[in-house]
């Protein structure tokens, strides 16, 4: 439930962890938080529920909010207002029971009307190795989408975003930001549960350079008719403010950390254009905004 306007004004003045604490005291939790009630909403009179037709699984700060909104622009894609882009339901079942009741509960988060497809995009799923087997069980026919981005640029954006969102300024938070950029490791694990032909990996930088061409690929992969959404280039949810500054020496070390993984990714995804990534092409880092 949306907090009243007066409370929202108070919350904006508080540090992020205290904002969250106050919201939690009211019983308000974000979908990625433990306290969020994952009981699915009741389907509407014209709606049916079932497994998602598509699931975006990655990556955090890789332009996924923009791309998800473009998916929803298509008349063949249904999303009931109020249901979040990031369901995060499967996040909870690392060591918790995931049986028929939980599968049905997950399906309940995907109401759709006849003749449409529906899905979600939870970018954190990519780095959660327990999610792919759950998806294979709960949505065996779903098509999976991944947007990847230069791993060092993603690291800077991701860590900045997490710290601004109230994550503690600890080595664990940094380690999480590093982990998210090991794309080949995550993709290798994904392919253990989901055949490669049901996974589409695209590059954020290429989507920026040619949104119409790349979106056409996404629509086609999902079996949708060609469609030209208005305002295709208007990115949403771009982070404001500066990003974490990386010392040149630290940046070089991070680039080296990702090098072997990025080379493996290029083998797993032959269409990957490494010349678009400053960290692998030796180019200067570009400030391309900070999408989600």
């Amino acid at each position, binding site marked *: 439930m949306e907090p009243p306007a007066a409370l929202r004004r108070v919350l904006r003045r508080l*540090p992020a*962890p*205290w904002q*969250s*604490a106050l919201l*939690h005291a009211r019983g308000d*939790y*974000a979908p*990625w*938080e*433990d*306290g969020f009630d994952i009981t699915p909403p009741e389907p509407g009179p014209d709606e049916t529920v079932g497994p998602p037709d598509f699931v975006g699984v990655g990556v955090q700060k890789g332009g996924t909010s923009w791309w998800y909104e473009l998916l929803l622009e298509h008349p063949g894609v249904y999303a009931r207002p109020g249901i979040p882009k990031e369901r*995060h339901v499967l*996040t*909870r079942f*690392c*060591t*918790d*029971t*995931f*049986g028929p009741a939980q599968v049905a509960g997950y399906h309940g988060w995907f109401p759709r009307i006849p003749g449409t497809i529906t899905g979600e995009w939870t970018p*954190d799923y990519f*780095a*959660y*190795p*327990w999610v792919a*087997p759950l998806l294979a069980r709960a949505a065996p026919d779903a098509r999976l989408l991944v947007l990847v981005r230069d791993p060092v640029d993603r690291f800077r954006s991701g*860590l900045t975003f997490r710290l601004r969102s*109230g*994550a*503690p*300024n*600890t*080595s*664990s*938070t*940094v*380690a*999480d930001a*590093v*982990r998210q950029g090991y794309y080949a*490791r995550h993709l*290798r*694990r994904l392919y*253990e549960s989901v055949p490669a032909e049901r996974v589409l990996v695209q590059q954020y930088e290429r989507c920026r350079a040619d949104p119409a061409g790349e979106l056409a690929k996404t629509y086609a992969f999902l079996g949708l008719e060609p469609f030209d959404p208005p305002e295709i280039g208007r990115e949403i949810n771009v982070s404001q403010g500066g990003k*974490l500054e*990386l*010392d040149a*020496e*630290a940046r070089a*070390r*991070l680039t*080296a*950390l990702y090098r*072997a993984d990025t080379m493996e990714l290029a083998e797993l995804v032959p269409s990957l254009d490494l010349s678009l990534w400053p960290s692998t092409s030796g180019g200067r880092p570009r400030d391309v905004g900070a999408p989600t």
Partner: protein
Amino acid sequence: MTSTARRALDRVPVRLRRLLPSDLRADLRHRSGLTVPGDLAYRATPPRPAPGERTGPPDFAVLGAAAAGSRWWLSLIGDHPDVAPGHDSAAAAHFFDPYCTERFGPAEVATFHAWFPRRPGRIVGFWSPDGTAHPWVPPLLARAAPRALVVVLVRDPVERLLDGLDRTADARPAHPGSYLADAVDRGCYADQLAHLFECYPPGRVRVLQYERCVADPVGSLAATFEFLGVDPTYRARPLDPPAAAPRAAGQLDPDTLERVRDLYAHDIRALADLVPDLDLSLWPSAVAPG
């Protein structure tokens, strides 16, 4: 001011402190300047060397894994008369934490060396339970201590995961995904060792199996002493591992246990290639059920 605030905080009963969510506790610590090892802002001053001591790069390093007995093993190593004390300092253990994003140059290397005083004829070690799980640590350690001998303890990854989650349940943040992913990934030893072997030649790394250390502590410790170049015949004080508390979370149901085991199947196969003397019969996770 800070020490006063720290003393005041220390007087607050632990149970009362735990009424606050972990994210809020961390935020309060930061605002009060009460940083602890693990916080990126934490900085500690190395001890002043005593007369007759010299400092320099550590001779050996014990790099985790967390919840795999590395602290126990380090305490046994440290019992040896040829090993200098002070090896388990939490401040030293977290030394590399900030340097994922910060410059690590000659000054930082010199500060790191200052954490390792020793008298002539003794060796001294670095310990970090995060050392293999935080991938920026091995390259920095290799830069600061290129000739160090490295010991890594591995344990049945599912047992390690469940114990690790149980031990850190109090620190579970509101956003559990990254916490769970960290816990799972810490048991993916093959990925971590492959990275470690890029920084240290395999001949300088000894991988020990926790279960084997428990089953044969005398033999395993003698082998460790021999690897570290100290008298292998020395018998350490009581060798039993710390008694394990029963897990609060209880047991997983069979389907979930199988799912969690499958998470590690690929990594265990890769680990067996990297560490040929690994005894997989000691790991229930690696043994097919029924």
